[in-house]
């Protein structure tokens, strides 16, 4: 029977997608299902709106190896929509399922709705310069980034059907030698309330010490542009902000020596208040800022730190 399906290797994300799924269920009048690779939250999924849950069980614990099994289910169920959690693993699986089933797939959708017998989505293109609206013919696949939707509220007394399926997901051509977790830093800047972001206007690594003083004075987290972490390795990769890095929305974002190219700005433009310091009055960061100081960060930083510390 045609239905709306949700898949993520991450159960929390799957519950967020159920929120999007429930809206589609209302407009499309089709049941909602979850495909999971762990059985731990079956009942939570049902409470959160799933009418049916498939749990895939395979010999291979690598989430990416479940694409074939996911494709088989959406084919067997004649799914009209499959929403996939937009983690890196999820995007990998999504594209493989789309290729197997010869369907369209929209990556990183900001919104999803049913209209004109198709799925209509919006997402960012050209590094965040523009929002693109697209229509996907059914069956439609869409990946949705984490935290786009709040988790669906659980309801008591919901009933749902549960099936466990064996997934033939062994692949002798690939051997995953080791899966080693990167130790995440204690603080995740994507949820920080205040951020001081440094760019290549900073001349040398040692000068980060002066930036840290401001960071301390206002109770912020330090962030940076891509070059500072990926090229110079002055700060960990988890600290760079932008389309390929972290998306942040603090109450206060202060940039020092950041030019404000769109790939960076897209990661911070949802901040409540944006302050920029840059020597170049024409730097695009000022168009993205509420307040700006045109000046040398080496002059401004100590003054600003002192002023904020004295508050």
């Amino acid at each position, binding site marked *: 029977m045609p239905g709306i399906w949700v898949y993520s290797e991450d159960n929390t994300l799957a519950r967020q997608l159920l929120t999007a799924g429930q809206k589609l269920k209302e407009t499309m009048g089709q049941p909602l299902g979850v495909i999971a690779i762990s059985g731990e939250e079956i009942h939570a999924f049902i409470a959160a709106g799933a009418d049916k849950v498939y749990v895939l069980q395979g010999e291979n614990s690598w989430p*990416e190896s479940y694409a074939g099994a996911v494709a088989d289910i959406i084919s067997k169920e004649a799914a009209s929509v499959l929403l996939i959690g937009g*983690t*890196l693993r999820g*995007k*990998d699986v*999504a*594209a*493989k399922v*789309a*290729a*197997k089933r*010869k*369907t*369209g797939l929209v*990556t*990183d959708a900001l919104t999803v709705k049913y209209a004109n017998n198709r799925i209509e989505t919006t997402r*960012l*293109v*050209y*590094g*965040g*310069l*523009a*929002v*693109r*609206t*697209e*229509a*996907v*013919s059914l069956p439609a696949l869409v990946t949705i980034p984490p935290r786009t939707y709040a988790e669906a509220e659980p309801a008591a007394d919901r009933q749902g059907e549960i099936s466990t399926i064996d997934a033939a997901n062994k692949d002798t*051509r*690939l*051997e*995953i*030698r080791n*899966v*080693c*977790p*990167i130790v*995440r830093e204690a603080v995740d800047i994507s949820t920080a309330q205040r951020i001081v972001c440094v760019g290549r206007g900073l001349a040398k690594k040692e000068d980060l010490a002066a930036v840290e003083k401001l960071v301390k004075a206002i109770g912020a987290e330090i962030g940076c542009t891509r070059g500072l972490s990926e090229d110079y390795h002055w700060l960990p990769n988890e600290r760079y902000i932008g*389309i*390929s890095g972290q998306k942040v929305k603090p*109450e206060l974002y202060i940039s020092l020596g950041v030019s404000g190219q769109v790939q960076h700005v*897209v990661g911070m433009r949802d901040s409540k*208040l*944006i302050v920029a310091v840059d020597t170049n*009055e024409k730097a695009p960061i000022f*168009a*993205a*800022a509420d*307040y700006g100081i*045109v*000046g*040398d960060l080496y*002059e401004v930083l100590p*003054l*600003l730190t002192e*002023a*904020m510390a004295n*508050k």
Partner: protein
Amino acid sequence: MPKVLVCYKWVLDEQDIKIKAGDLSLDSGRAKGKISDYDKNAIEAAVLLVEKYGGSAAALTFGNTKVKQSLKDALSRGPGQAYWIGDDAIADKADAFITANILAAAIRKTDSYDLILCGEGSSDVYNQQIAPRIATLLEIPIVTFVKEIGIETEKVIATRKLGECTETIEIKGPAVISVLPEINKPRIPSLKQVMAAAKKPSAEIKVSDLGLARDDLEAKVVVLSDAGYVMNRKNILFKEASQADNVAKLVANLAQEGIS
């Protein structure tokens, strides 16, 4: 000695795209083409593999007829030869479904490869689908988001980076790999390399020679509209000569905003 193929996309440089003030439509009239930034990393990775382990690197691109302009830049980055597919009517409506169908068919037609490299996404529309789609169509393994590639006796070792972990994967037989920008720093071709590129062979492949069905060339995703993202900010600039004055004004304004 690996035979490597690298796929790249010729995209509009987003820095040249302007948002029209009135209706927020995009004006790409003055936008120049460039090799997608992420694909420069893929080309570099292919060439570094060949420099280290021998073998050969070829490049493949699909786009409108303007892709031909990209060949010189692509070849000056090190691949020994290039294949290009330029079709205005199809490129105009091509989604990831069509593009992958065309690339996979072209790969089958040209040769067999040990390794096919792609960037993790394209810098214009960033679908991040082509590498896994091609691998699925060619029925070979795919390893995405790779930051390191090595070759050990008949095996490719790829280290991929996910948010919270790195995984090292051993691959037997041909495979597709998508690379992260951090895998390398693309070279800036020297004058000599640019000159040499002009002498390298390139071959056009026609979509009509790929044996694709009509359905394979019908888009599943249709663009309805593009609208420039507008920022609504106060844009208050302090630019006195005295930074002490500027900072004082800023701090006063922040205080008004409730930030101290």
